């Protein structure tokens, strides 16, 4: 509004800010495919799902192969081990931080999977983390297993020799 055409007589001047708090609550549908994966976490298992068209194994899966657009029908049990494809070291404190800094966040490609996901690395000095490092999942105690990635306490180095770059270059 042009200040030439309208001037408020209120001594406080025009209103410049208005708070209208909004809160929306939602249900979430995990879906048929992701449910199989989440139930796996509850058993301390990684459950991959295979595309019947291209053969790629997704973990986690949202219900389809995003390349072929078809439902993933075959379940593939995966081992606890994988490879760090890339990583970052978190040095910045933020509200709600539950892990002592500095700590390592990494993309982990499980053995036999064709999709990496983010995981926390512990039992590893931040100077030692590197691409190709072999890691394994450490699960929470059996009584604490839940149908989510929270069942994975963290990943830690296995001490095996590094994975060959060619085995994970496609997943960077």
């Amino acid at each position, binding site marked *: 509004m042009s200040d030439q055409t309208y001037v408020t007589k209120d001594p406080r001047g025009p209103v410049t800010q*208005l708070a*209208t708090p*909004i809160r*929306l*609550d*939602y*249900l*979430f*549908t*995990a*879906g*048929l*495919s*992701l449910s199989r994966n989440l139930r796996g976490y509850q058993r301390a298992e990684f459950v991959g799902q295979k595309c019947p068209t291209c053969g790629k194994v997704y973990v986690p899966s*949202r*219900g*389809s*192969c*995003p*390349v*072929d*657009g*078809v*439902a993933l029908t075959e379940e593939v049990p995966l081992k606890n081990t994988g490879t760090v494809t890339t990583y970052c070291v978190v040095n910045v404190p933020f509200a709600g931080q539950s892990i002592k800094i500095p700590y390592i966040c990494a993309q982990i490609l499980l053995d036999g999977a064709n999709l990496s996901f983010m995981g926390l690395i512990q039992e590893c000095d931040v100077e030692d983390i590197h691409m190709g490092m072999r890691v394994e999942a450490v699960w929470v105690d059996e009584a604490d297993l839940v149908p989510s990635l929270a069942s994975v306490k963290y990943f830690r180095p296995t001490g095996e020799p590094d994975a060959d770059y060619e085995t994970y270059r496609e997943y960077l």
Partner: protein
Amino acid sequence: MSQIPAAKQGHRPVAVVAFALSHVVRAETNANEVEMLMPVVHEVFAKAGITKDDVGFICSGSTDYLIGGPFSFVTALDAIGVWPPKSESHVEMDGAWALYEAFVRLQEGDIDIALVYGFGKSSLGDLDKIFALQLDPYTMAPLNPDLVSLAALQARAVIDQGIASEEDFAAVAARSRKSALSNEFAQVRRDDSLEDLMAEPYAVSPLRRHCLPPISDGASAIILVAGDRAFDLVERPAWITGIDHRIETHAIGARNLAVSTSTAKAAEMAGVGEGPVDLAEVHAPFASQEVILTTALGLPSDTVINPSGGALAANALMSGGLTRIGEAAQAILDGRAKRVVAHATSGPVLQQNLVCVLEGA
């Protein structure tokens, strides 16, 4: 080669060649959005006899406010499988407007086939709160007016202006639910007597429960094809001979809610009145709104209204308008009709309206 009907606006001819929809249900608790959409997309490709590789453009209609997650339309592309990459777009509106965008995109002439879909789960959140957020953010949204109360204000205006009565609303609901008996995909399918409906208590006066749409989860999809290629795919393509959409002011108090000026203008631009209308699929979530819309569309008295049951029988948000176009087109694809009208609405109390005229060759 069959002849393509003349396009009112002189556009490149575009036809609906296939339509598919999900069974519309109160709450799809097993499948997520991708899993709900995927079989519908597979079906529409199968009906058109094409694959995703034949598609030059993809456009979808949905809203993140229903799922409560950002960029949910990107996730939904997993249902299609867009590799190698596809030209894709999205409208935060009903899929009918995605169809409009695809129609415009096909005018450029470099591609011939487009996939359009709409999807939404109404069961995940509080619809009254969600849809209050589409209102003016300063003066209206903070009041949280619920969907039914806004529709009731509109219905009251319809009665006060002598356009229709509560009995007329009940008749619309009874006819819609009865028509839905022959639509296996609909949700509210029943034969009610007018007396029983009028005996229901008010939900929000003057609207009784039967005047309200069901809460629905669902998805639908359409394949659009430009030019003669449509005849390669199906025997009787449903040609879009006119399509237009108009919007009215955001200020509900500045409108006469008992009439739909935007629908009337869109109908005029799409050429609804320039020929007979065998059937019309009108997107009227509330029974009172159908009265307003059929008047604004200027439909002949012998036009069959909402043989699918319409939104009063299945109200999957974000695909309901697209489904109206699909249902109307299907009548031509099946050879049941020659000239049909489809309508879609968006925004509070019929703020924005799209009208589409489809004809067989």
